[in-house]
């Protein structure tokens, strides 16, 4: 199935540029040069993700029924089928049935799993970025899609780069040449049909099929998909009743099994969850990806079916974080020890459902030992929080393109806490559109918040589970 896993590496390819490699590949006498240089218009997207155990995953989406060729270190083969083209019958969705439709996936999703140490991959004329042993820059973003939601009467002007700036954010971040991209969920927002009279979203695809994913992620995010391998986390917009079908076909790092997927609501109680896994960020850091798509916004009791599922998953996080040779970061969509702003009221606490689960395992620490920094999206702003209590510093980077939330108060009200027993030391925040860049500096990562145009807003320096940002309070864009 994945014959290329055992393919011998071209021993000389490491030192070659992509263009030079194409020439060399041609000289090997195979069809590698064709794969390397010939653009295949059928291929709509090709990118690289990193899955569990550091597995490099090459994905491609093609309009053809057959998977495209792939050249891995000079050896040409054919990508494996991940998900065949299909139209999934209408299922219960987050919208009224009258505002829902079957999800059409008239594309074939393909993948290959190159072995560790692979140095070159070409698909359809594109040289794909591969994981580096020691990444120096990691772009971090979340909540990037264009909101089209009838219940909210929200019709973000997807055709207007000012109103929906994800494409600009992707271009700005890509220009900084990241070695990895970490997206912390909520890729897809085009849920309902744009009213005919609104030119701002006129003719936009809607629903949960391929066309919406292409419009919300694969086209505007193309510069970032081409720039670096992606680490992906799942948001509540990718739960089964929303864009879960596309999530599992395109982005989920696990194998795809349609019979167990969000295609049928009968699978929701399992398909809305996936086990955490770690991705190495060089030799001394790892990030644990945690699927909180179904965490919701309200507390759920210990008798809720979700409770033991999340409980078991946090035990697995603990096992991963027990590796003391690495600094462990934790990434999930819903903020746990951060805030949700409320106009005219005190900021709301972090996700109370997850907090309740975590307290049963780690009554005062919430996180298991070893987790130093937490990364989230969901709230459409940027937050950097340092705690004087023994809790991991936390970043929220949900300002990636969807409609923004209001700001947090500045100065921040005293004695406001994201969870019982957690004591806030300092918070730095803004709600302007942008992203975060993790930049390697010696033995540590710096965390830098940028606007959509690349203006640096703040730099935060970590020390263990603490951070120190060079600015405090509201960051004016």
């Amino acid at each position, binding site marked *: 199935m994945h014959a290329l896993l055992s393919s011998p590496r071209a021993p000389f390819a490491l030192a070659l540029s992509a263009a030079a490699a194409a020439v060399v590949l041609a000289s090997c006498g195979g069809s590698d040069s064709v794969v390397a240089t010939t653009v295949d218009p059928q291929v709509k997207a090709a990118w690289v993700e990193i899955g569990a155990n550091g597995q490099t995953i090459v994905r491609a989406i093609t309009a053809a029924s057959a998977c495209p060729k792939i050249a891995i270190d000079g050896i040409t083969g054919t990508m494996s089928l991940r998900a065949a083209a299909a139209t999934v019958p209408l299922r219960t969705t987050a919208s009224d049935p009258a505002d829902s439709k079957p999800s059409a996936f008239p594309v074939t999703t393909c993948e290959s799993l190159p072995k560790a140490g692979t140095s070159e991959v070409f698909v359809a004329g594109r040289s794909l970025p591969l994981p580096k042993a020691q990444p120096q820059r990691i772009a971090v973003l979340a909540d990037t899609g264009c909101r089209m939601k009838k219940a909210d009467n929200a019709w973000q*002007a997807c055709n207007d780069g000012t109103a929906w700036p994800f494409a600009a954010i992707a271009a700005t971040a890509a220009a900084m040449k990241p070695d990895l991209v970490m997206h912390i969920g909520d890729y897809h927002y085009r849920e309902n049909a744009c009213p005919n009279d*609104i030119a701002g979203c006129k003719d936009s695809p809607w629903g949960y099929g391929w066309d919406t994913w292409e419009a919300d992620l694969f086209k505007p995010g193309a510069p970032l998909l081409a720039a670096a391998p992606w680490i992906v986390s799942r948001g509540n917009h990718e739960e089964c009743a929303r864009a879960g079908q596309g999530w599992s076909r395109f982005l989920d790092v696990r194998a795809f099994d349609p019979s167990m997927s969000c295609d049928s609501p009968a699978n929701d109680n399992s398909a809305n969850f996936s086990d955490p896994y770690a991705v190495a960020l060089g030799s001394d850091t790892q990030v644990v990806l945690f699927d909180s798509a179904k965490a919701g916004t309200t507390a759920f009791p210990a008798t809720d079916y979700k409770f033991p599922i999340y409980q078991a998953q946090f035990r697995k996080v603990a096992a991963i974080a027990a590796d003391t040779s690495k600094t462990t970061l934790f990434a999930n969509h819903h903020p746990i020890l951060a805030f949700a702003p*409320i106009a*005219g009221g005190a900021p709301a606490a972090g996700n109370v459902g997850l907090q309740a689960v975590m307290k049963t395992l780690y009554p005062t620490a919430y996180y298991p030992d070893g987790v130093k920094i937490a990364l989230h999206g969901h709230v459409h702003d940027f937050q950097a929080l340092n705690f004087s209590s023994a809790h991991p510093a936390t970043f929220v980077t949900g300002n990636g393109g969807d409609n923004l939330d209001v*700001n947090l108060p500045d100065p921040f009200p005293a004695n406001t806490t994201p969870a019982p027993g957690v004591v806030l030391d300092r918070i730095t925040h803004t709600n*302007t559109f942008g992203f975060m860049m993790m930049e390697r500096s010696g033995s540590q990562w710096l965390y830098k918040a940028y606007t959509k145009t690349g203006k640096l807003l703040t730099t935060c320096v970590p020390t263990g589970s603490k951070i120190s940002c060079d600015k405090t*309070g509201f960051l004016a864009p």
Partner: protein
Amino acid sequence: MRRTAAALALLAACTGALQAQPALVGRVGDTPQYAAIVPAARPLAAPAPARVALGRQLFMDTRLSQPQGTSCASCHDPAKAFTSFNGGRDGVASGSLRERLGTRNPPSLTYARFIPPLYFYQDDDAQVPAPFGGLMLDGRADTLAAQVREPLLARHEMNLGTPQAAAQRLRASGYEAEFEAQFGAGVLRDPQRALQAFGSSLEAYLQSDELSPFDSRFDDLLRGKPALTPLELRGLAVFRNPDQGNCASCHSVSVTSSNPARSLFTDFGYEALGVPRNRKLPANGRADAFDLGLCRTAEQRHWPDSESWCGYFRTPSLRNVAVRSRFMHNGVFDSLRDAVRFYATRSTSPADWYGRHPAFDDLPAAMRGNVNIVSTPLNRRAGSTPAMSEEDIDAVVAFLGTLTDKRYAKPPPR
């Protein structure tokens, strides 16, 4: 059963609601919570012409007050975008008894037909449900018909006092035949029916296109005409920019929609802005007297923690705002530029607005925490740079001038 259905259909037609309400998902106190926003751009039934004509006549009739001489139009003058002061002062209107002054700046009635009844909605990402709609700035009336009955009786407005007195005055003013033709025999002999009929008539008039012409220069822009000057276009950009004016986050506008009802410049939501106290109002003579806005409605409708809504008022439409002479719910500002500048510098230069008084001084100290301090541009620290410059403010004011209906418009600037 059939009769009930027919009656409901008639009711729907009378209230202008063609479209079914969104699904009911619960209640906050006595107030419905829906599964979706009630959109402004929903289809509304056209009121019957005869009913509109009767409503217009009633609206202008100065006999319907005690003493006579004050009509609805006295405080909602059609020549002034349906707002005026009836000889009042300092931002509030006089009633038919001139010495009796109101406590709020009379709102414009233009485009009021689009305001839905009070309801709650909670987006699945939101932490709490939020209220929308409701007539009056505190949302206490669910329909225009219910709203217009209040000033007819109110002692500080038209002062007829009781339904009986109102019915008698309508009869004495020669309306009996017309009312009976439209509402049935004996309608003005039954005070409650008389008030209902009065409300229905006024509602029909207020729902007519006369009050919602959508013919401003901004509407021309929506229709594809190059109608705005560079300064006005800059103002529109500042108005929409979430890093600057951020006005459109509440005063909704859809610049790419050809349907002007999507640009009513309100989301019908509620805000506590912490507007400075209008110390010239007689009602504010007592230091402990406050207009608390939505929390009175919250209390009446049994919302939990009703005091958390004190200081909130419904976001008004900005259409025809440049026609007005007083601004904010208590009429404290007498220039549109001051109103816009208040948003820009309330938090950066609070002394400009509150002087020696504490910030948010038009609320009891215990309720000042309700005021919005997180939305741009209201979130900046004292002494920091405002999110809008003085030039931005000028541009926004220029843009707001483009929201004036044609009948009130001055020639556009060259």
